[in-house]
């Protein structure tokens, strides 16, 4: 069956933005995580995963995000996630308390701006 996931990678300055569309489940989660991870150069300050247009995500998607958070953390890079407030994705992230691993933004602009601005404190490890 056709992949239901769409991944678009863009770079805004030294921030990598990965825009996901479609549905993220166990069938595509690992591959999607690898694709995003590989797109982040060591020179990048961080990565923003834009899930605002993602229609569905389950726990495997959450696992992918946690894994991604660990990966960028080891390179002292930042991960920020964008989810539409009140949407199904935000609901899932809320239930699994993803905020503990990385900040969740309502829009891409604020997420990118937050990464571009150096911060003093590191987010707690996932």
């Amino acid at each position, binding site marked *: 069956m*056709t992949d*239901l996931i769409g991944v678009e990678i863009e770079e805004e300055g030294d921030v990598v933005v990965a825009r996901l569309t479609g549905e993220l*489940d*166990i*069938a595509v989660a690992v591959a999607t995580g690898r694709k995003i991870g590989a797109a982040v150069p060591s020179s990048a300050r961080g990565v923003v995963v834009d899930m605002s247009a993602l229609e*569905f995500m*389950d*726990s495997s998607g959450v696992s992918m995000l*946690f894994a991604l958070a660990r990966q960028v953390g080891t390179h002292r890079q930042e991960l920020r996630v964008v989810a539409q407030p009140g949407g199904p994705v935000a*609901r899932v992230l809320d239930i699994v308390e993803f905020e503990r691993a990385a900040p969740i933004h309502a829009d891409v602009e604020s997420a990118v701006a937050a990464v571009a601005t150096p911060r003093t404190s590191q987010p707690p490890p996932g």
Partner: protein
Amino acid sequence: MRELPGLFDVRVKARSLAYLFATGATLGLLTLAFPHADEVRDAPLVALALTAYAISGLVYASADRLRDWQIHAILVAGSLIISLANYYAGPSTLYPLLYMWTALYAFYFFPLREAFAQMAFLAVSYAVVLAVQDPDSVVVRWLLAVGTPLVAGLLISRLLAILHEHSRELQQSEERTRLVLDTAPDAFITLDRDGHITNWNAAAERLFGWSEDEAVGKTMRELIVPPEFRERHEERRRALIASESPLATERFDVEFQRRDGGRFPGEATVSKVEARGDVFVSGFITDSTERLRRQAEREALLREQTARAEAERMAEIVGGMQALVDAALAHRSLDLILRDLVDQVRGVLDADTAAIYLADENGRLTRGASAPGDQAGGEGFAARVAESREATLARDDSLIGVPLLAEGEVTGVLVAGGEPTREFGDEDLTLLRLAAARVGLAIAHARVYEREHRIAETLQRSLLPDRLPDLPGLEVAARYLPAASEAEVGGDWYDVIPIAGGAVGLVMGDVAGKGLAGASMVGRLRSALRAYALEGHDAGRVVERLNRLLWTEAEESQMATMLYVIIDPAASVVRWVNAGHPPPLVIAGGEARFLEREASVPLGVLPFPTYEEVLEPLEPGSTLLLYTDGLIERPGEHIDDGLAQLAARVSEAPEDPHGLLDHLLATLVPAAGAADDVALLTLRNLPIPDRFSAEFPSEPESLAAIRSMLRRWLSHAGADDIEVAEITTACGEAATNAIEHAGTGNGSRFEVSGRRDGADVEIAVRDRGSWRPERDDDHGRGLALMRTLMDSVAVEPSGEGTIVSLRRTLGQRGGAA
């Protein structure tokens, strides 16, 4: 009046004369035996008798050759002998008796004048004898001498009167014959034995220009036979006279000469006639000029007919050749060309069998087609023909073969065979030679075309989904029917694209380009559409982007019509965009209706057209049908008629999607195949039951289908968007667990079932693996999600597997939980 030939035949006259002499001589000798006078002198009497005997013998022997004057002369000689004998024998009654016989003979055989002349001579010679013997009794003896013949003459003239009566009848008969001959259209000529003309009828006068009086007595040589033929004429005449047969008849084609020197071809039918001891020749002569002219005309006509037959035969050869060439050019499919060709060859050559062998790249021959049916053998002969590169006969001319050449290469060999008695000839070789070049070229073209056609069709097929996705609550069926082989493979395409959120995109399109170019454009549009659809654009934007792609990237001004329909089964609505394509059809409650909105322009026509999507309900239980124009367009028929036909056929078709499509193909596509490609795609929004149970393979790919199914079922059960999303997510976690328990790739399956009781929904996921305790964060999160999102979650071992039951009462949580 002339003496009639043959009335007194000369032989009869001569032989009678011979008897007369012999009798006279015998009587003379008898008077010696009984002498009654002293002065009888024996020696002269004996000598006279012997002379008479001799003359008698000579006359008898030469009876055939004697002529009338000779008979007269012999008769005079006879008279002299009698008179001499009378002189030597003295007065005797015997001699007057001899005189009388002589007179009788003369009167019998000669005309009266000649007879009297003979009598006069006889009387003179008798009177001389009397005067010498006894001058005293001269008066008595004169009286006796004259009186006796006169009495005899009277008697004879009486007899002759009777004979004349008979002869007149003969003459009348003769005159009738003569009249007939004179009025006869053909010249009639008789010749006596010496070749003198004795008869010359009126037709002969007209034909030759000589009158009867001029001709009679002359010979044909003198009058009518051209000089160079005279010798031959004479030979023939003699041969005819000498022939044994009494009635020999011969026919000659000879040239004759007229009096004026003009010549003409004639035909002479001549007969030898023997009658009453005489021999003569009769002949009919006709002018053959007319006959020969007619014959020449007949021959000319015959030549013309022969020439026409020859021309017709040539026309037949050319026609036969044309039939073969036509067969080669009539089709674009190699298979059809070959099959048609072998049939034509059999007909044109009147052959029993025909076969075509095709050469591959290495020149090896394989049988392409044969008629009738499958004929074995012949490869050896075909190989010889290919090697010689010449039209060839074999097996006592009952086998004929010709190489098919294209650009100097042997592309194949055509072979025809007949019964052992059948002989093919030069005409057949000529015919095949003429046809071979063009047929060879046509076959070569067809093979190139065939290869391209095959590639295009393969490409086209590869672009169509080989398997339609299993869509929960939806039943989908599709058909693609390439045009009957003559036409090129079209740019028809369809696709079924699952879209995030449980929706399904249906595509039906028709790219104007054909063959490879068309197929490759289909490929690009198809992958672009799949990408755009996944990016979550609405239908209008997807089609606009496809238009942009076609507008900017198509090499020539390429065009495509397409229909893009998104079905959201959860909401039971369709959103659709039509870019110049025939309208889709919705079948609901046995009624068929077209989704008739004004179609927008086809793709590739304008740079920036706007495509607006249209929303239509698609109630559970109704069916959507998409198709390409190949289904509704028929030559000479208005498109509206095609659409009406389609609607009518759809109304009577079974509800089942496969049954529907089969019915449409069976009733709308001609048996010989469609002129254009036909693509059909149908989707049935299945009725939604309160309970469901479905099995899925233990594969991650099953998850999307389960979500689609659940969204649709939950929407129908009255769940709001958030409830749909949350319950779907929870069930997805349970299903993920089931898949992980079974392990992937081993063909095992698990079951998802659901039931609804008022606002209470319960969904169960049953697998055949064993429930594993939560070992890591992932599974912990899964179970946490289930527990949070549902009112209750129960995990029970069941037989060899596990059942996870999830319950929730709808409308209880109020907004986001």
